[in-house]
């Protein structure tokens, strides 16, 4: 039984097919990378899973029970945490308070009181490397730190599945290494991860499988190294001419 399974998921915006018959499954312990050119439907896919968008057709199953049409907070409490590509902190709160909100509301079982949520936040902040900045107001954080905070807030929910939407975008090489290290720690703690990424080093570095979206459809799915060499993927990213030239060079 898969942890999460999508079958024939479609989502239209007016005349645009943002997602068309997308089907795939995520197993417990998986690290699945989703790549694809801008506008391919990657973020739409995450929004459908986390319940922010309603599906037009198809179904999403969490441990074989359908979660289609559930409100976002119900899906969150099932154990699905997510981050946003454009970070969405709670601006009037400190780093610690932001993180505590995840523990306060996202836990599937027992309800935490604010005090317990705050100490929970401290533990999580150490995992993502924000421990020393816990009392900062979020507006003082740099971009990489704000991305870490997104992850911390989601982790405080103790999710079983974590959806990461481009947590590495806009980071420099050193910061990417640090973020990679963070993702590995999360993976090793037993959390299943689905991540959207443009940085190929990340896909190759942590993902067990990769899936390429293009114009809302799944183009290729498989081990990251194979996927990145696939002619259709190169075409989607760089155009047909470039793909032909590459093939000529290799032969």
């Amino acid at each position, binding site marked *: 039984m898969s942890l999460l399974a999508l079958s024939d998921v479609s989502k239209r915006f007016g005349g645009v097919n943002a997602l068309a018959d997308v089907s795939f499954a995520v197993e417990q312990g998986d690290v699945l990378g989703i790549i694809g050119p801008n506008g391919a439907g990657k973020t739409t896919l995450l929004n459908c899973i986390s319940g922010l968008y309603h599906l037009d057709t198809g179904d999403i199953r969490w441990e074989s029970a359908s979660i289609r049409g559930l409100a*976002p*907070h119900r899906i969150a409490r099932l154990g699905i*945490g997510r981050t946003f590509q454009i970070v969405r902190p*709670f601006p*009037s709160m400190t780093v610690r308070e932001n993180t505590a909100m995840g523990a306060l509301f996202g836990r599937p079982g027992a309800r935490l009181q*604010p005090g317990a949520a705050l100490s929970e936040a401290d533990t999580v902040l150490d995992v993502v490397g924000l421990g020393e900045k816990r009392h900062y107001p979020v507006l003082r954080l740099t971009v990489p730190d704000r991305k870490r905070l997104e992850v911390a807030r989601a982790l405080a*929910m103790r999710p079983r599945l974590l959806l990461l939407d481009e947590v590495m975008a806009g980071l420099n090489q050193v910061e990417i290494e640090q973020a990679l290290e963070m993702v590995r720690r999360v993976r090793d703690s037993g959390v299943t991860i689905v991540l959207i990424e443009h940085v190929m080093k990340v896909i190759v570095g942590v993902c067990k499988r990769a899936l390429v979206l293009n114009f809302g459809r799944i183009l290729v799915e498989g081990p990251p190294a194979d996927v990145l060499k696939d002619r259709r993927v190169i075409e989607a990213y760089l155009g047909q001419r470039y793909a032909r030239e590459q093939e000529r060079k290799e032969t």
Partner: protein
Amino acid sequence: MIAREDRLPPRLRRSIFAVTMVALAYVILAPLTSIDAAQQAGLPLLTDKVWFRIVTTVLMFVVLASAWNIVGGLTGYASFGNIAFFGLGAYTVGALVANRGWPFGLALLVAPIVPALFALVIGLPLLRLRGHYFAVATLGVGVATGEVVNNVGPLGASTGLFLPIVRSDLLFFYLMLAAAGLAVLTTWVILRTRFGYGLLAIRENEEAAAVIGVNTNFYKVAAFCIAAALSGIAGGIFAQWNSFINQELVFAVSDNVQMILMAVLGGAGTALGPVAGAVVLELIIQTLAGGGSGSVYSQIGLGILLAVCVIFIPRGVIDFFGGRSKLSLRYFRQTLRETSA
């Protein structure tokens, strides 16, 4: 953890606390000098009819501004329809006492229920709207509710409702004081519970709140209902206090603007901000108006004040007490940039 008052430096907090306690003791005890026994004992009369009228009105606005703050300040939904809750509370008491002959005390218990149910019904569709759409929609509901009430025969239609007169300044003063205390206490408690953090999360970023597990629709509607119940209590007390109500008196949009102004001026999102705003502003209004033609100027003045406050001190005067911001030209330039972006 998030309430702004907690961030005040301790020395300032102590002195504010002392001043508040003295003012509170005066307000609670001074009316007692109007009791016959006190007068016979030769105590000076500290409170006359005018004092009671002004202070009870101030307390009424403490309730209304605090209630508005729960929706507008904590949850971030600027409601221009809260006056409908006040009006419905007033008409609930009015109809039960004047038409059905209920005792006032019993009718007052129903006063919060009717507006809260109304908030539940209109909250479900209205709270799906955001920003100025929500503001305009609630304004419409507020005005429409008044117009409907104005055309219902049993509610006195355009004549209004007359309640049997109860002559006791003391009773209405203490009732309103209790309501104000309840409103502030409610806010204070909300700010320290899971529920309050949920509301703040919705204010700060609603989608982020939803995906970390906040039941946003339930929280928003609950906040709306709590605000409605509190406003309804104030309306119910007002109906019997004034012994006459009509649409113009209890469904005045200008009163809704006033409660917003009080909350924003004092510091929206805090427990004590709306109280400070209500006290200061209502005293100014009472001084400016003094009845008669003065009220026109006070209306104009209030409109200008609201615009200036929203543009230049969007976080309220309480922002200056946190040690984070200083009152300076630079502050105004910065907030101007923030609010005009």
